[in-house]
């Protein structure tokens, strides 16, 4: 799948919350002195946890924090597929589409969610509540079909379970 990112103009580094900054400091301190770049993936996760996605301004902030060139952050952020480089809905549904899940009905699951939310894969609902994505194997092959949202795994999904899950998410994100 093509990862489409905007050719944005340069953005000023954004400010992060003090909670996120404290966490960033913690993950950087895990590594020996001078090896703080090792924390870049942890930091990008933290940034995404706060913002919902990783903007150019956010990456520029990460570059400042780690004292590296912005391009080094872009290179990393675009390599790893967990980072959303465009704004997304409050709940990103990442449905596993790989072989073992396909054997037990992931194609149907994707169709059903598309129908239910009236969006296609890659799109966000009008109310900004859900974004639907397909992803490759999430390591839950015996418990498929499944999806991940906010690091939580929803497994052995049926239409009924999907309905309940979507309702619960709507409720929680109100």
């Amino acid at each position: 799948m093509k990862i489409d990112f905007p050719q944005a103009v340069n953005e000023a580094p954004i400010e992060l919350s003090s909670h996120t900054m404290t966490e960033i400091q913690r993950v950087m301190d895990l590594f020996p002195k001078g090896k703080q770049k090792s924390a870049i993936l942890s930091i990008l996760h933290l940034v995404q946890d706060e913002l919902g996605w990783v903007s150019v301004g956010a990456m520029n902030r990460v570059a400042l924090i780690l004292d590296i060139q912005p391009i080094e952050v872009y290179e990393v952020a675009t390599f790893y597929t967990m980072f959303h480089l465009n704004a997304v809905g409050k709940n990103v549904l990442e449905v596993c589409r790989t072989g073992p899940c396909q054997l037990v009905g992931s194609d149907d699951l994707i169709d059903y969610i598309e129908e239910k939310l009236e969006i296609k894969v890659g799109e966000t609902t009008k109310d900004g509540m859900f974004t639907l994505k397909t992803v490759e194997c999430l390591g839950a092959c015996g418990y498929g079909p499944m999806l991940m949202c906010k690091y939580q795994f929803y497994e052995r999904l049926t239409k009924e379970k999907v309905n309940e899950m979507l309702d619960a998410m709507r409720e929680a994100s109100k």
Partner: protein
Amino acid sequence: MIKVTIDDVEIEVAQGTTILNAARQVGGEIVPPAMCYYSKLPGTGGKCRTCLVEVAAGSSADPRPMPKLVASCSTTVMDGMIVKNKTSEKVQKNRGGVVEFLLVNHPLDCPVCDQAGECHLQDLGYEHGSAQTRYRENRRTFKAIDIGNKIKLHMNRCILCYRCVAVANQLTDKRVHGVLNRGEHAEISTYIENAIENDFSGNMIDVCPVGALTDKTFRFKSRVWFLKPYEAECACDKCSGKAVVWMFGNEIYRITARKDSYGEVENFEDKAAWICNDCRFDKKDPKKWNLIGPRKIDRHSVISQGKYLTKNDNNPKLLR
């Protein structure tokens, strides 16, 4: 010194030499092609897989053959190693495969590409490619991005050798471009519109094996084989000032570094003679250069057959 045999030629090289560099010490047919390795840029190599060779015997101590073809640019020789390049059918077949892979998504726009005539992929395609493509799918394309007024980036032509990234890392003080995304969609980009402006950024053009990075000050001005290359020098406080100026009549059309038969910048006083952007882009006035004499250019690809002087050919009349 250790002994190694490449295509039945036995040579002695220093410990730690790679197979490719050992072959280059002999020169000629036995040298594997290299699209990503660049001896003057440490850390390059291993990626394009065009330099794959067969190791028929690992060393005299362990004469077993290596099970897979190895990248000659990043495999060091062992005493008693026997390497097959031209003489290995397997190598030729697989190299043909690699060339096909490099071409499946490469636009066949040689007629409008400034690199034509000195393009390493063109050479390889000529040598190994088949006359027809088996690729029926749509070719991959990228959104054009502007990287400044001196260098043109044609991402569609890029083969991801990473040489330009190494130039930015090793020759310039701040790298603003790199490789983004991954797999099929990996691309050289600046992510945000960002001009690459640095005294030595122009060397990215010289190291690019294809037409992905070309000189905007020379773009569409002439085909390279219509120009007369001269060795030239100038006093420059930024670089060695050793260049090749490409002339048409009395006009300088473009300026490049002096490159050897492998397309690499030549050494001057034991250091790679990279040229600065002032020399490359802004000194198009012949008066600023001391023209030393005609530059001998190695015969390069089908287009330039018979057009240039070659190493073995000293007849100045051939220089048109």
